[in-house]
């Protein structure tokens, strides 16, 4: 028995169907918010009923408005649909009004060429000339209309070992070109590009915005005709809730747009003394290892020389002491 047995045993564990159903039922949140929502909906429904009754008397002038309302039901998510439909069936008695719940528009899928893809890239780069590289990099970023989102630079003890982490944003359509350019100005040692599809979330946000906008319009229409103060207050409460939700969703949509139109690149830039080109063949590896060792050996002698010279003051002092000691010892022996 080993790791593989464990992995295959865990693989067999999947959430049971009843559990999935229970969790799915949690969405939309069936918590404390629903009663308020229902209550306001009921009030709204009553108003629509009044409006409808009014329209019966006034003629067909207001018909357009109730149709607008019907659209709203169609554009909302399916669960809201049902809620509206239930409340309406209790409130509306005038049978001449048909409120049809059309199939939800939110679920229609968009064509493939309209998909919202978020691209991100992780790139490690080595360079011998750090400062030149950074200047060239900045130029390229500017050239492609991108910008640096964050940048950290580390400086280790020796000057030739600088290291920087950068998060760069580049317009999505020029991502590939930009990466190509990078390998010209530096040596790319690893590169990964990932795409994630946020089309579903995007469409979801879009349709929620549409639904809320329709609701806002309808609420405003009802508000104009509201007469009692409590109704006005309740409608306005709902209205401000709708507007707050709209704001949040619109911000989210903007964020999505930003993520789609600009690709994020994480750059790991390392300054090295020598750029080693990867060579996977037998002799290539030997050559690389040999070169590394020779380089290290050279480095060792260089360090040795530096340390010896740096230690001269100590050596001088020790030398003087040694001379003094020898002289004393010789004098003592002569006696």
């Amino acid at each position: 028995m080993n790791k593989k047995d464990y992995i295959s045993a865990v693989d067999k564990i999947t959430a049971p169907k009843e559990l999935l159903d229970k969790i799915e039922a949690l969405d939309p949140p069936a918590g404390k918010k629903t009663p308020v929502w229902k209550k306001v909906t009921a009030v709204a429904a009553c108003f629509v009923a009044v409006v409808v009754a009014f329209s019966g008397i006034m003629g067909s002038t207001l018909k357009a408005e109730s149709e607008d309302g019907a659209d709203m039901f169609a554009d909302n998510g399916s669960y809201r649909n049902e809620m509206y439909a239930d409340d309406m069936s209790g409130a509306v008695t005038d049978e001449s009004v048909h409120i049809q719940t059309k199939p939800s528009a939110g679920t229609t899928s968009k064509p493939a060429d309209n998909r919202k893809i978020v691209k991100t890239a992780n790139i490690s780069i080595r360079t011998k000339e750090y400062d030149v590289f950074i200047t060239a990099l900045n130029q390229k970023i500017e050239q492609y209309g991108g910008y640096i989102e964050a940048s950290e630079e580390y400086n280790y003890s020796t000057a030739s070992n600088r290291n920087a982490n950068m998060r760069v944003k580049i317009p999505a359509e020029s991502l590939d070109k930009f990466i190509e350019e990078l390998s010209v100005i530096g040596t790319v040692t690893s590169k990964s590009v990932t795409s994630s599809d946020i089309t579903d979330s995007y469409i979801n946000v879009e349709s929620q915005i549409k639904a809320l906008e329709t609701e806002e319009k309808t609420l405003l229409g009802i508000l104009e005709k509201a007469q009692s103060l409590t109704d006005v207050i309740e409608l306005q409460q709902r209205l401000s809730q709708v507007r707050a939700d709209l704001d949040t969703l619109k911000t989210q949509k903007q964020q999505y747009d930003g993520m789609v139109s600009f690709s994020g690149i994480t750059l790991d830039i390392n300054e090295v003394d020598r750029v080693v080109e990867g060579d996977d063949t037998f002799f290539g590896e030997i050559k690389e290892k040999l070169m590394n060792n020779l380089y290290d050996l050279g480095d060792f002698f260089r360090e040795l020389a530096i340390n010896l010279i740096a230690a001269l003051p100590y050596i001088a002092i020790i030398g003087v002491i040694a001379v003094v000691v020898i002289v004393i010892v010789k004098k003592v022996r002569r006696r």
Partner: protein
Amino acid sequence: MTVFIRGKDAFSYAFKQFTDTVYRVALHNTVNSSDAEDVVQEVFIKLLESNKAFSDGEHLKAWLIRVTVNLCRDKLRKSNRETLVENAFAFKTGEEKPDVIEAVKSLPENYRNTIYLHYYEGYTAKEIGKILDAKENTVLSWLSRGREALRKELDGGFDDE
């Protein structure tokens, strides 16, 4: 930090992607599957109520795992049990091998979670440290002790071969 998902979006994403992960973690940390199912539901309720913003799917996943482990710990504490499994290595008649899941479950909490997160989910010690709020070295020692314990009990153990 850019906000990637939150609220209901996070919920539906988590539901599609990570329900099995949450259930597996829960099953590793509860006595039986019905407790595990309760915990999974609580985790998703927490996700909805918190309306927390997540920077990406991995962030969400790590959060879910952490919450699951914590909720399981609370549940176990309430039921006043010390171990999940009475005796994983008492061979049942007719059964050739001890159940490997039960064996992992018989380990102390941190050991079993580390084993699961490393061997099944493929997290590194550093990442596990972030999820379980421990130092990388601590995680490494949990991993090696957990592996050691399993090696003693299971034929072949958990070597990295």
